[in-house]
């Protein structure tokens, strides 16, 4: 029979049959008999429960054999249907350990032409904990596929909500803040407000974090090193956030040096607050996707940081 599914399309199912463990698919409620049962008793149960075979367990729950409909028919045929099963039991029974993936059970079904397999604790411990059939496996697969489909739907709905929110906010004005020199009581508020703003828009938390850190570093820079300035945060056509920090001076004499980790001009007072490790600009550069610094000793400094809203850009590793 030619299947209309191509092999490539079934990759997901292929992966799943390797991922799903037998214990997740099996039925743990096992109908079993002990060695003292008769074929007749078993036949009645098979009929009543509409199953095709039962495992035979000893008093330690260990498997000693299996009785299937075939065995019952043979018993009928040869006239020992009312006898105890013990002498007629096939002792060599194929089992599957519960921790194996269902693909193993599928292979055994094919290889031995059986429809059900007793599931044991492990390869060594032959205590029976369940029974697995092809329909159990199909059920588990369908359930798993459904769960995945639901997750995909959920994500799609979330993404849609996110882009709707973003497109609404595009029409909003950019956030604008004044940052005063030496005002340590209020320093950090820009970052805090900006963080909340993007959190509410549903932006990926890792990106929100980077936006907040860049804001904070730029804000502290204005507060510590400049004569005062402003920070503008705006979102450009759904794709990126632009943070612009402007100050009124005095300007950075050597930008390359300022971007070097560990370089600082901070005073003792600033250091006592926990700042001034010379990590501000390098850290802002690390968290932003792009950082441009323009500075003049006349008009002051303009810092422009860009962070992409897509999920692809991970935080760059320290260099």
């Amino acid at each position, binding site marked *: 029979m030619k299947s209309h599914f191509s092999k490539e399309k079934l990759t997901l199912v292929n992966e799943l049959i390797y991922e799903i463990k037998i214990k997740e698919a099996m039925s743990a409620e096992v109908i079993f008999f002990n060695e003292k049962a008769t074929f007749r008793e078993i036949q009645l149960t098979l009929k009543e429960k509409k199953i095709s075979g039962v495992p035979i367990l000893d008093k330690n729950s260990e498997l000693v054999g299996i009785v299937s409909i075939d065995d019952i028919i043979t018993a009928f045929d040869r006239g020992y249907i009312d006898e105890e099963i013990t002498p007629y039991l096939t002792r060599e029974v194929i089992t599957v350990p519960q921790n194996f993936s269902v693909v193993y059970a599928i292979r055994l079904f094919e290889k031995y032409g059986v429809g059900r397999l007793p599931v044991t604790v492990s390869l060594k411990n032959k205590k029976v904990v369940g029974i697995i059939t092809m329909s159990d496996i199909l059920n588990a697969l369908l359930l798993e596929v459904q769960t995945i489909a639901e997750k995909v739907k959920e994500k799609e709905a979330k993404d849609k909500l996110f882009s709707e929110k973003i497109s609404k906010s595009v029409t909003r004005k950019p956030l604008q803040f004044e940052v005063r020199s030496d005002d*340590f*009581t209020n*320093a*950090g508020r820009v*970052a*805090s407000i900006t*963080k909340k703003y993007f959190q509410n828009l549903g932006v990926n*938390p*890792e990106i929100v*974090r980077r936006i*907040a*850190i860049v*804001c*904070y*570093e730029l804000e502290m820079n204005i507060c510590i090193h400049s004569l005062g300035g402003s920070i503008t945060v705006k979102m450009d056509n759904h794709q990126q956030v632009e943070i612009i920090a402007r100050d009124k001076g005095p300007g950075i004499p050597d930008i390359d040096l300022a971007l070097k980790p560990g370089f600082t001009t901070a005073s003792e007072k600033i250091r006592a*607050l*926990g*700042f*001034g*490790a*010379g*990590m*501000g600009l*390098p*850290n802002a550069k*690390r968290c932003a996707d792009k950082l441009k610094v323009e500075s003049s000793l006349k008009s002051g400094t303009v810092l422009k940081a860009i962070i992409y809203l897509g999920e692809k850009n991970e935080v760059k590793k*320290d260099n």
Partner: protein
Amino acid sequence: MIIGDLINILNAEILCGRKYLDREIKDFGACDLLSDILAYSKEDYALLTGLTSLQVVRTAEITGAIAIVFVRGKLPSPEAIGLAKSHHIPLLKTDELMFNSCRKITEELIKEKHNTK
């Protein structure tokens, strides 16, 4: 480990944020330099610090800390406590030194890891 566990581990006192003590701590940071916190911290972490300024709470909030432990018996300013309250960040205080605090937490983490094996 949850935030509340730190009370026993460090013999700590809660300064605010009792309601949020059941949050799970995913990482720790021990820093007396705000710039380092900004550069190296991870989401949902607990910060151990000897700094007590308002800016510590700010930095913690911005970097996504879920708790701050002040070591060496230091008390933060009322403004810092107020800011932490408004951002739902529990503040704890311990008399332990930074090194000892880190050691005690590490020992507990190793125990936890061992027990889950």
